[in-house]
């Protein structure tokens, strides 16, 4: 039983990681209906940024964290301006391909700049553990869980209760109508990319002590976070968290209880089953066809 709880807890920690990356997918999708396949690679870039600030320039952890997040926000805005804005409004699949291309590009550029070795940084969360009875929880994992929950709550409130959040939802619903209502659509879209890249950077910084920083970390985690976002229903912020938790817990438990090989496949099987029953994901709005 203790084994089970321990596995469950580490599954939840893993799930929060996926949830945090999935949050980035969901934000961009929610505002612009663009699916950003390079989200994992933005996270990887965040990790490298923080390594540059803390590991190479020797800044304080929190200052480096702040700089990395701000730097990635600017980077996200630039990406939107250069790559996404010219093709916004064209078929969704071409935008998906463009972001896949961006992912390829970022991975190799990061590999060329920072090398292909695993990098690591010292953080205030490294090496500490938290104990409840026999249950052990490392501080770095706990920090991910806490950050994910806080970010989810803040962003949920932002989308539902602020003027800007409402403008973003309106933009996603119908861009033309949003223009007519006087919403600065271009600025909204830029901002959403900045927020999404900042969330990705946060994930990258928090993951730095757990997974280390290397150029392929984004692809591996992004490919798991993506089903999480779909499972929760693309476009739902709590959905991203729940989807991430489900994928994380299933993966961990399958790795523990099922024969080897199930660990990597189980999340996808669950995903396919859920999509068969509810094509719009768990928390997605029901889709209705209009002519």
């Amino acid at each position, binding site marked *: 039983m203790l084994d089970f709880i321990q596995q469950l807890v580490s599954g939840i920690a893993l799930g929060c990681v996926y949830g945090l990356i999935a949050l980035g997918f969901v934000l961009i999708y929610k505002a612009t209906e663009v699916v950003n396949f390079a989200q994992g690679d933005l996270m990887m870039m965040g990790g490298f940024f923080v390594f540059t600030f803390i590991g190479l320039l020797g800044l304080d952890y929190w200052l480096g964290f702040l700089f990395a997040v701000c730097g990635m926000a600017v980077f996200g805005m630039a990406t939107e301006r250069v790559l996404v804005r010219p093709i916004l409004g064209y078929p969704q699949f071409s935008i998906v391909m463009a972001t*896949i291309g961006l992912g390829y590009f*970022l991975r190799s550029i990061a590999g060329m700049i920072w090398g292909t070795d695993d990098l690591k940084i010292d953080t205030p969360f490294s090496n500490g553990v938290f104990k409840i009875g026999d249950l052990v929880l490392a501080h770095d994992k706990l920090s991910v869980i806490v950050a994910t929950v806080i970010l989810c709550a803040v962003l949920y409130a932002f989308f539902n209760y602020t003027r800007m959040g409402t403008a973003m939802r309106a933009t996603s619903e119908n861009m033309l109508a949003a223009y007519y209502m006087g919403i600065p659509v271009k600025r909204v879209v830029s901002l959403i990319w900045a927020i999404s890249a900042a969330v990705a950077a946060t994930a990258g910084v928090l993951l730095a002590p757990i997974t280390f920083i290397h150029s392929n970390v984004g692809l591996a985690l992004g*490919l798991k976070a993506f089903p999480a976002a779909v499972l929760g229903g693309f476009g739902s912020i709590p959905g991203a968290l729940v989807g991430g938790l489900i994928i994380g817990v299933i993966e961990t438990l399958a790795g523990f209880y099922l024969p080897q090989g199930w660990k990597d496949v189980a999340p996808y099987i669950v995903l396919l089953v859920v999509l068969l029953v509810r094509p719009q994901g768990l928390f997605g709005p029901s889709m209705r066809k209009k002519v």
Partner: protein
Amino acid sequence: MRFIFKTDYDQDIRILKHSGYWWSYGILLAVLAALPFVVGSYLQSQVVFVLIYAIVGVALMILTGFTGQASLGHAAFLAIGAYTAAYLQKLGVPFIVYFPAAAILTGIVGAMVGFPALRLTGIYLVIATIAFAFIVEEILARWESVTHGNEGMRVRTLDIVGIPLPRDGEAFYFLCLFTLVGCILLALNLLRSPTGRAFIAIRDSETAGKSMGIDLAAYKVKSFAISAAITGLAGVLFAHKMTFISPEMFTLLLSIEFIMVIIIGGAFGVHGAVFGAIFIVMVDPFLTALKDDVPVLAAGIASSLGMASDAAGKLRDTMSSIGSAAGLKGAIYGLIIMMFILFEPYGLYGRWLKVKLFFQLFPLYKKATFKRQKTYVKSERNR
């Protein structure tokens, strides 16, 4: 400029629209038939890969280009075709049997993927096909009694009724060429039949298609099955060309490469598949050649412009170290995808059509002919 006066319906759906087609495609076929006797063995082998990629491109064109169903799982179909061939060949089944058998099996699997796809659109479909591809990859790695797991499988030399077709030989080249031509003819014939028109209607508007009486479910499954079956054929040829197959050859990256084939080629005509295949396969040797030649060339230019010889040598070394950096290929791949989507959305075939039209209309060509309508994003959620 040629004007064709159409007087009956058959003229409208004819594959070879006018006598010019006989000439141009006849010459193309003659060149392709002469090719293996002219070029070296390396180039011939690259052309065989072009042909195999083009077969997959045609398959994806039917599914993505004409039915509008995105798929990032075609590497899995290729894998199923390849493994079926390898396994049946090991059991002693002749090529004439396992070639169609691989297509049929892959087609059945494709139809099975098509069923969940009925309810999924857009990004949900993409992720479902990715999930399917991962599951297939894992099955191939685990089902060791059939696939030998991660050790991979050797594929023996192809042999048709006792005549061996080594993978480097001309005969194998012609087999690939015949398969590609057959698949293209199949695709063209399909697209001018009611089935093909139903596919196009589904791509353009599901709602409109449905109200015209098109059975969406049946046609989507058909499209998946046909596309998968053709990819299965390509898989058999791929297995024989590689002579060794293992699960890690059929990853998501290969699926992305296949999608690149049709995006770079232009996802609106069968020509695009061939153009894209040529580009994708040839970009690799081209980059290798570039890596060797450009630094030397640049240093030569620099020294002829009056740069000191040691500085020019240094320039050459820096450039070749950049050129041989690991991962440069990925960066260039990424750039190519982004550039094509941003600046050449109709792909190479679109460029070809533009150039052709420019000369046909010579002084009167308008740029706006091919301008895409900019639309505002409308939510897919209630489309």
